[in-house]
């Protein structure tokens, strides 16, 4: 019979590099930096680690042949013949690394494991993510379908369905970006650390209509790591360990763009993943029970729609429930992305999912460096990161909380 993962696995150490255009570091340097911090945080050494999972979409994005194997981490850390596995689920890769590690612990095959997510995007000489490799339909059907091009489809659809003029819709999105930059400015490891105004956001250069410069996350290098042990043994490592309450991955069938039933105003995959995760964690009213949601906001519209699809408010009611109430600030009714989010903290693809979990863990532990964004009375945090694009997503949802 299937067993729940709830309260079986504990996170006893977390680490995260400075997210930035890291001209000083290559992909292995980033892994080493994040893992060093996580190991120290857990009070263990690399030789104690029994198995590792590394999540990365493209590694260093240098090789058109595709991303590397587990060697990218074993070589960086000089682990000696332990299993190190590369996992990938696009932007959900960091979540997959933590999930692989968590399943290793839950199976009791291991009792001290490492998860790391990493991406080195800035060594290529161009911005953005590059194009898909030849495979089914690509790159002719879907040619030039960039991430902003695909996400902006959802913004147009949302504005149209809920009766926003582009100007009014863009203001709702601008408020989200202002909030992201507010927290980026208060997070020493964030990539974009400058506050912006609504006027700056709505008047910014257009990237992909209707999304402007401040509606889009930057292209960032970084890594994040976690050390996991069985919850039953976690006290030996630290008092304030954090338990995994639920983990869901809801890989969509991938054909929603082509599906007449889909209107691009919600993330179907996130809805399905959220139902599974809330059931597993025993959450009935997520807006009341969750202290923080760190969700995938590679674009401002992605934060808006993910908030609705995680059932934090009714579909179409985002402006009333979040913008007007300022609910998404750290002292608001439902804090969202108070790390700065992918938007301002940065989005190294494979690192982001693990980095969101790290934010939730450190919030629970009361260890957020800048007290101005520390959430009081933290109980449960949710980390959501999704790979793919509207119509073809794979979200990972990890809920963590006090034991």
């Amino acid at each position, binding site marked *: 019979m299937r067993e729940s993962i709830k309260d079986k696995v504990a996170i006893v150490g977390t680490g995260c590099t400075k997210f930035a255009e890291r001209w000083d570091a290559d992909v292995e340097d980033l892994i080493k930096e994040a893992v060093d911090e996580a190991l120290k945080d857990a009070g263990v050494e690399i030789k104690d680690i029994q198995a590792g999972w590394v999540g990365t979409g493209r590694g260093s994005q240098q090789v*058109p042949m595709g991303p590397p194997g587990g060697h990218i981490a074993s070589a960086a850390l000089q682990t000696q013949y332990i299993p190190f596995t590369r996992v990938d689920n696009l932007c959900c890769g960091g979540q997959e690394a933590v999930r692989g590690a968590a399943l290793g612990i839950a199976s009791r095959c291991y009792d001290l494991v490492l998860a790391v997510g990493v991406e080195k995007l800035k060594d*290529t*000489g*161009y911005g953005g993510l*590059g*194009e898909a*490799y*030849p*495979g*089914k*339909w690509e*790159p*002719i*059907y*879907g*040619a*030039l*379908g*960039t991430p*902003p*091009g*695909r*996400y*902006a*489809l*959802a*913004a*147009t*659809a949302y504005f*149209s369905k809920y009766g926003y003029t582009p100007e009014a819709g863009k203001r709702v999105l601008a408020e989200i970006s202002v909030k992201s930059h507010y927290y980026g400015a208060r997070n020493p490891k964030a990539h974009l650390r400058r506050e912006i105004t609504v006027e700056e956001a709505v008047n910014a*250069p*257009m*990237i*992909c*209509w*209707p*999304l402007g410069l401040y509606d889009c996350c930057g292209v960032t290098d970084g890594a994040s790591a976690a050390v996991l042990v069985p919850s039953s043994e976690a006290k030996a490592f630290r008092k304030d360990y954090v338990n995994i309450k639920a983990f869901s991955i809801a890989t969509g*069938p991938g*054909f929603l*763009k*082509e*599906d*007449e039933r889909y*209107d*691009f105003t919600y993330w179907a995959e996130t809805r399905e993943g959220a139902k599974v995760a809330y059931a597993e964690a025993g959450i009935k009213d997520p807006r009341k029970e969750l202290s923080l949601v760190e969700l995938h906001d590679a674009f401002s519209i992605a934060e808006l729609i993910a908030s609705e699809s995680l059932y934090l408010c009714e579909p179409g009611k985002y402006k009333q429930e979040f913008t007007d109430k300022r609910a998404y600030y750290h002292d608001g009714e439902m804090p969202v992305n108070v790390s700065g989010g992918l938007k301002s903290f940065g989005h190294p693809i494979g690192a982001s999912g693990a980095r969101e979990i790290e934010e939730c863990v450190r919030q629970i532990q009361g260890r957020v460096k800048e007290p101005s964004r520390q959430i009081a009375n933290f109980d449960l945090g949710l980390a959501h990161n999704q790979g793919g694009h509207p*119509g073809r997503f794979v979200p990972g949802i990890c809920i963590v909380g006090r034991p």
Partner: protein
Amino acid sequence: MTGIVSYGAYVPLYRLSREILAQVWGGKGKGEKAVASADEDSLTLGVEAARDCLKGFDKSKVDALYFATTTAPYKEKLSASTIAAACDLKEEIRAVDVTDSIRSSTNALTMAVDAVKSGSAKMALVIAADVRLAPPDTLYESLFGDGAAAFLIGNEDVVVEIESSSFITLPFMDFWRLENDKIIRWWEERLCREEGYVPFMSKAIKDALDKAKVKVADIAKAVIYSPDKSMQGDIIKAFKLDPKTQVQDLMFDSIGHTGCALVPMALVAALQNAKAGDKILAATWGDGADAFVFKVTNKISKMADRRGIKDYLKSRVALPTYGKYMHFRDLMEWEHDLFMERRMALAEVWRYRNWYFRFYGVKCTKCGHIMLPHPNYCIYCQADEKLFEYVPMADAKGKVVTYSMDVRSRAIDPPNVLAVVAFDGGGRFFSQMTDRDPDNIKVGMDMEVTFRKVHDALHIHNYFWKCRPVRGK
């Protein structure tokens, strides 16, 4: 009797005003010229004209295709085969590119007529298209435009009878391109006029008129090829044609000189204004001359739904700058692209050729939904693809569900517009939107599909379908 049973034409959406050319190079400019979009070439222009021409016909009866152009996208690799697939013609077809001369269009027409007359083909499709380039800052740069026309040749319900034809072939040199030339070269125009064009066009026209026993006064419209704006005048004078009523405008001021498509397009324009019984003279030039006398039958009334020249001229977008034109026609060395080399997979295109070339969707026979592209299982009821049947979708019309405009795209003509189109009658297409005015795109607007060049990854012209706002209105 063998003759033309249908016709069609295509004028690309974009127009370059000659005032813009004058701003760049000096002088005065009058009118405008049609410019193929950045994703169009002579092959795709030809597909458009052919689709206009084939409207309402049983395409399985077409068993030969002749594609005339001087600007084939490949030096080695047939264009006609790609056109045949994009027009959803059967595979058991003869398909030929007829190239290297402005006169290849009437040569192709003659080959098609002969094939149908001989009985080796029931119906034959003739297409002429050109995207010719002249050197910047020349008369010819200003003159040349892009376009296409198509004729279907058959024995039943003939719309245009061919009363006579005459042919002269000469080793005469006036315009040429060497193997690797992108732009034309030419000899002093006086030699062409005095020793070639005037005497031999005149001879061909006289022969055709004599053979048909038709007097000049009986000609309703004369479609007379001209290498430039003035030379045609010598023929008009020589034959005492009335320039006001009898001479078909070659549309140099609205479309430009479209190379081997010039006479076919002007003939379609003439036919769109013709009535039953009209006699039409047509003559082309290039390594000699051809002339034809045509007679319009009362079946012309069945051609009313052709967009032809008339409707395609109605929808237009002005190119704002010469820079855009340079991008469209790749007239410069551009910024080096640091992006990883774009790839494609020929095997994938071949496996799904019904999708990439013919634009077939699939219909699930279990739940009735139409899907594009072809999934392994029904996305609605998960039935196995064994229960699917193909549905041709190239003629479907639909409406925009949502769209975006990528300003920073690598597209030649940004913003790159992505759109999701719901077809009337079922099926959805996630697509690039081409031939669009970025200031006038709306959710719910009417769309149709068009065959375009998506990119040149791995030095292969990769063609596929895009959506575009419905044209011809």
